[in-house]
């Protein structure tokens, strides 16, 4: 611990998602000088979205490194750096390009500890934006987290608020194991909330109840929480009280929180941006089947992207789940006798 800042315990500030991430990276780099940031354009440019803005100036090119354009080696050298005692925070510029690093993420980083029986640990955070709605070119918007969720040894988090982004990023960086930290592209500037300025850690594996309700629970994560919240407002006007559970942590999954919500509400809608088939919503449903089958008053509804590749800009608003589709699904599940 090379530096600890003096911040009043209760100080906080409204930030958007990007600001919260940037602020956290600064704090964690000050706190522990083993923390390094590496990736494409993270240095002088401060990241294509400015998530790493200012880091290069403060911490220098030795700790904030513009890598060549090669995702596998960003993750692969991170594994080596971690084994050598550094704490790499690697950026994959868009999650769709994590495919290029899949063998290093799933095949190497995730099993380094297991393979070496603890001799080496891959204390690596891999940050990456994902998700649609902002008219990006191909593969930038793809919500491919389910491609990683079956990989043992890897943790995956996807916060939906700036405050959680801070708390979970700090926790991820301090976690001894590899964490895939997923940032909602569409929410980078749109999501804004109060972020504690001092030490703020959010345990990985704990869901967050965003708003209370009793007729139905909407389970979502990342930007879909925002969609769910807007749906809930609309539903409230119709007299339907929807609870919203933000998973936040995909792996580990907060099975207890899910079970509790299902028990309380009896009816469930799961919302995901990914294509339906084998998206992570399937695991949520399978988990509910395991823990809460008898609490269900109707089949779980899932609202997903369609089983088509993420489409071009003119089509995307009809691909990503929107408020209308969530509202309709809630109505269906609530009306089921």
């Amino acid at each position, binding site marked *: 611990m090379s530096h600890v800042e003096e911040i009043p315990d209760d100080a906080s500030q409204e930030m958007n998602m990007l600001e919260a991430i940037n602020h956290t990276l600064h704090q964690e780099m000050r706190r522990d000088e083993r923390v390094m940031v590496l990736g494409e354009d993270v240095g002088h440019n401060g990241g294509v979205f400015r998530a790493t803005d200012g880091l290069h100036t403060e911490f220098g090119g030795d700790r904030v490194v513009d890598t060549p354009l*090669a995702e596998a080696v960003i993750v692969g050298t991170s594994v080596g750096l971690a084994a050598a005692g550094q704490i790499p925070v690697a950026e994959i510029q868009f999650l769709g390009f994590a495919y290029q690093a899949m063998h290093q993420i799933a095949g190497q980083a995730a099993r380094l500890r297991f393979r070496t029986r603890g001799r080496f640990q891959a204390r690596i955070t891999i940050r990456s934006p994902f998700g649609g709605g902002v008219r990006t070119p191909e593969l930038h918007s793809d919500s491919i987290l389910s491609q990683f969720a079956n990989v043992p040894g890897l943790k995956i988090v996807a916060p939906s608020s700036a405050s959680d982004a801070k708390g979970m990023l700090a926790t991820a960086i301090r976690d001894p194991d590899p964490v895939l930290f997923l940032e909602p592209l569409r929410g980078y500037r749109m999501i804004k909330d109060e972020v504690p300025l001092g030490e703020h850690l959010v345990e990985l594996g704990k869901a967050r109840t965003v708003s209370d309700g009793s007729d139905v629970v909407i389970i979502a994560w990342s930007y879909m929480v925002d969609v769910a919240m807007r749906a809930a407002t609309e539903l409230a006007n119709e007299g339907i009280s929807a609870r919203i559970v933000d998973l936040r942590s995909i792996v580990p999954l907060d099975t207890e929180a899910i079970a509790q919500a299902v028990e309380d509400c009896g009816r469930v809608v799961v919302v995901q941006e990914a294509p339906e088939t084998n998206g992570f919503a399937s695991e949520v449903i399978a988990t509910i089947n395991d823990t809460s089958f008898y609490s269900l008053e109707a089949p779980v509804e899932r609202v997903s992207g369609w089983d088509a590749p993420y489409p071009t800009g003119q*089509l995307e608003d009809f691909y990503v789940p929107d408020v209308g589709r969530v509202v309709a699904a809630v109505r269906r599940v609530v009306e089921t006798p």
Partner: protein
Amino acid sequence: MTRPLSDDDLRAMMTHMIGARVSSQRAFNLQRQGRAGTNAPIDGSEAIVVGAARALDPTADWVLPQYREPVALQRFGPEVLESYVRYILGDPDGGHIPEPVRVWPPQISLATQVPHAVGMAWGMKRTGETGCALVFLGDGSTSEGDFYEAANFAGVLRAPVIFVVVNNGWAISTPVASQTAAKNFAAKSHAFGFPGTTVDGTDILAVYEVVSEARERAVSGAGPTLIEAVTYRLAPHTTADDPTRYMPDDELVAARGRDPLTRFQKELSGRGLWSDDDTTRAEADADAVMEAAIQAAEADRANPIELFDHVHAIRTTRLERQRREWIDHYGEDPR
């Protein structure tokens, strides 16, 4: 060996370079007006793409672009630009360049097009077609495994393929010096066992020359060539980029002094083949073509239901079911 260029060729090349610049700038503005999505201007690379295209046979050869090149591939037919306009408008048909145009749509996942080019070249070789595949990739994209894996395999196959590395000095904010310690990008060909050469990418005639030779090698069965064409990126990386954060001003100013358009214009003027009037006319023509393409594309936006098309040759039952749900929710045509 190299086919000599007629005056008409030379004038067409100048026209295409100007057309590329104009289209690229219109596309940029279109994004600023909120009418198009993120796009990547070609400014600085016109000589490379137009020069290379001139050395190819559009009825026999294939071009696999990265994403900046489509505006400069007029030689392969107007369809390339027309599709590109749809592409930046977010129209799915932007990915469709109709038969028989031998050009692939833009590739976003960097360097993944390189193995595709090698595969196509290999396929042509197998069936005895006389032709080659030319693939463009950026300096930054050479750092991806796909480039090396594909180029290495191409060497073994002696496939009729030409790799053109457009070295514009930058990969977004990352300068070449952070990309590789190799002497230059041409030197990478030593890893693959075929010739590599560096050419001044602001000199369209030099580009024409080396690509012509590479094509000759390719179609005669002598195998691949790696060409590094050196230029400088004269515009932001894309509409989403702010190069003042990282690009040294003096470099940019110096590079503007080596603008490939100016250079070729001077050359042709000196030969009495080009006048300022020609420039004005070429610009106006290009603008009109672009305008027409934009009008056509904007007038004929996609029905979002098309997202269910072309996933498979025949939709699966599940996709059919989803499509029905979609119609129930959005209607047959929510445009």
